[in-house]
C-alpha cells in the first residue's frame, strides 16, 4: 500500500500557518499534477463528488481563471460568485453570504476578499475548507507557493538563495506570503522600493530593507518585480511614474551596469511593461514569468486535492 499523508491544516488561510512539511507535500503533489496537465486529456476524476464555490469580493482575472481551471481539471463542480452581482450590495454579512452558499451543499470555498483576515473570521464560523485567494494586503498563499515552486524548478534547492522583492511592498499580499514561504524554505529575502511603499514591520520579519535598487540588484540571485498598484495609490506615494521607473525599473542596461550576468526574474502579473520592468527583460532568458502561470494551475490542483482528500476533515 502507498504512503498515507495529509496537510496539517483543514484550510489554506496563509503561508504563516502551514509547516515546511506541508509546503513540500504540496510541491510533491504538484509535480504529479504538472504531468497530468501536460497529457492529451488534461483531467483526472479525483474531485468528481466535490463542489467548489469561487467567491470573489474583489476583481481578479488570472487567479480566478487559474483556480477554476484547476478545479475543472480535477473534475470538481464549480460555481462562481462575484460581489458586484450579489446581495452583498444589499447589506448581507460575509458569514451569511457564505452560509447561504454552503446550504446549497458546497464542499469548499475559494475566496478573495479586500479585508485582511476575512478568511480567518470566516473559518471560525462556517464548517468547510476555505482557501485564501488573497485577502487585502495580508496573504496570497497559492501565489507564494507557485512562485517558490517555479523558482525551485529553475534553480533547485532554495536554501541560502538570495531573493529580492521590489516595488509596492505596502499594498502587496504577494510580498508577505512570499516572505513567509521563502524563509520557511531556507532562502534569504530582502525588499526594495521607495520608503513610502515599505511597511514599517518588515525588519521584524527578518527582512532587510534596501532603498537603493542598484545595490540590491548586486546582492540578489533572484528578483521578484511587483506591480505598482495604481488602483491603491490613494495618496501620492512617489512623485511620478517616470521617476519610479528610473529608480526601480528593471532593464537589461541596469543589469549589465551592476555587472550581473545571471539572474532569475519573476513577476506575479499583471505586468506594467515599461514601468517596473522593460518588455525586453520580461521576455528574456532570465524570466520565469510564464512558468509561474503554468505552475499556478498545478499548485492549485495540489492544494485542492490535498484539502479535499482528508475524510476526517470533511
Amino acid at each position, binding site marked *: 500500500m*502507498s*504512503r*498515507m*499523508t*495529509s496537510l496539517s491544516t483543514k484550510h489554506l488561510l496563509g503561508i504563516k500557518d502551514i509547516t515546511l512539511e506541508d509546503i513540500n*507535500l504540496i510541491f*510533491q*503533489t504538484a509535480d*504529479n499534477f504538472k*504531468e*497530468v496537465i501536460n*497529457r*492529451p*486529456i488534461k*483531467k*483526472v*476524476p*479525483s*474531485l468528481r*463528488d*466535490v463542489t467548489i464555490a469561487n467567491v470573489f469580493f474583489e476583481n481578479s482575472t488570472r487567479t480566478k481563471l487559474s483556480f477554476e481551471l484547476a478545479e475543472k481539471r480535477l473534475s470538481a463542480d464549480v460555481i462562481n460568485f462575484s460581489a458586484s452581482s450579489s446581495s452583498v450590495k444589499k447589506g448581507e454579512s460575509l458569514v451569511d453570504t457564505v452560509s447561504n452558499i454552503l446550504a446549497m451543499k458546497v464542499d469548499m470555498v475559494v475566496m478573495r476578499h479586500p479585508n485582511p483576515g476575512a478568511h480567518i473570521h470566516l473559518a471560525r464560523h462556517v464548517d468547510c475548507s476555505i482557501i485564501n485567494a488573497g485577502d487585502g494586503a495580508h496573504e496570497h498563499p497559492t501565489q507564494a507557493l507557485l512562485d517558490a515552486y517555479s523558482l525551485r524548478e529553475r534553480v533547485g534547492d532554495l536554501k541560502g538563495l538570495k531573493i529580492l522583492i521590489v516595488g509596492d511592498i505596502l499594498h502587496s499580499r504577494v510580498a508577505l506570503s512570499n516572505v513567509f514561504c521563502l524563509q520557511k524554505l531556507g532562502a534569504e529575502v530582502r525588499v526594495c522600493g521607495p520608503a513610502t511603499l515599505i511597511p514599517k514591520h518588515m525588519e521584524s520579519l527578518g527582512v532587510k530593507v534596501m532603498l537603493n535598487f542598484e545595490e540590491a540588484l548586486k546582492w540578489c540571485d533572484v528578483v521578484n518585480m511587483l506591480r505598482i498598484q495604481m488602483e491603491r495609490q490613494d495618496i501620492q506615494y512617489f512623485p511620478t511614474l517616470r521617476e519610479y521607473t528610473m529608480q526601480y525599473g528593471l532593464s537589461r542596461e541596469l543589469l549589465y551596469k551592476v555587472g550581473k550576468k545571471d539572474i532569475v526574474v519573476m513577476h506575479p502579473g499583471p505586468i506594467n511593461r515599461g514601468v517596473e520592468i522593460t518588455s525586453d527583460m520580461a521576455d528574456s532568458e532570465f524570466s520565469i514569468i510564464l512558468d509561474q502561470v503554468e505552475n499556478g494551475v498545478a499548485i492549485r490542483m495540489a492544494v485542492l*486535492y*490535498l484539502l*479535499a*482528500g*482528508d*475524510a*476526517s476533515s*470533511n
Partner: protein
Amino acid sequence: MDIRTLLDHTALSQTLDRLAYQIYERHLDFEDVALVSLQPRGVELGRRVHERLKKLSGEEMIHHGELDITFYRDDFRRRDGVLVPAKTNLDFSIEGKEIVLIDDVLFTGRTVRSGLDALLDFGRPANVELLVLIDRRYSRELPVQPDYTGRTVDVVKDERVQVEWSENDKNNRVTLFSEQND
C-alpha cells in the same frame, strides 16, 4: 502472526519465465505491444517480465511504461488522509497498441478498474490484457479477471499477500501473512 511462503525465489523466477513465455506465445509480433505497470507495486514485477520478454523475443524495443492511478481511485475522500502519488511515465502513444497491464496482486479488482480509467485517458488502445503475479480468488468486488496469472490462491479477507523484491534480485519471494486478532 503466521507467515507462509507461497513462492520462494526459485519458484517465483520460474513463474516469471512462464508469464513471459505466455505473453510471447500470444503476441509473437511485438511492434505494437506495450507493457504498462501499475504504480507502485506492479513496477518491479513489470521490469522483470519486460527483461525476460526482451531476451525471449530478441526485440530490443518493447515499450514499457509506469502508470500511477492515485487520482483515479474510488476511495478518495473516504479514508483519513490522502495517498502520496507516484510517477506516471508513459513516453509512448498507447493509441492502437496491445497493452498488457501489470500488477502484483489482484484482490478486489478496484485498482485494476482505476488503472483502466487512467490508461484510457492516454488514448484508445487496440486491446488491454491483465497480468498479475497472484490472483486472490473469491475476493473480487468488481468483475475483473486476469489473462495471465502467476499463481492463484484462496485466502480469507484478513490474510495479506506480500510480494518482496530483494535489491540484488537473489532473494525474491511471495508470502502469506495472517494477522490473528485476539
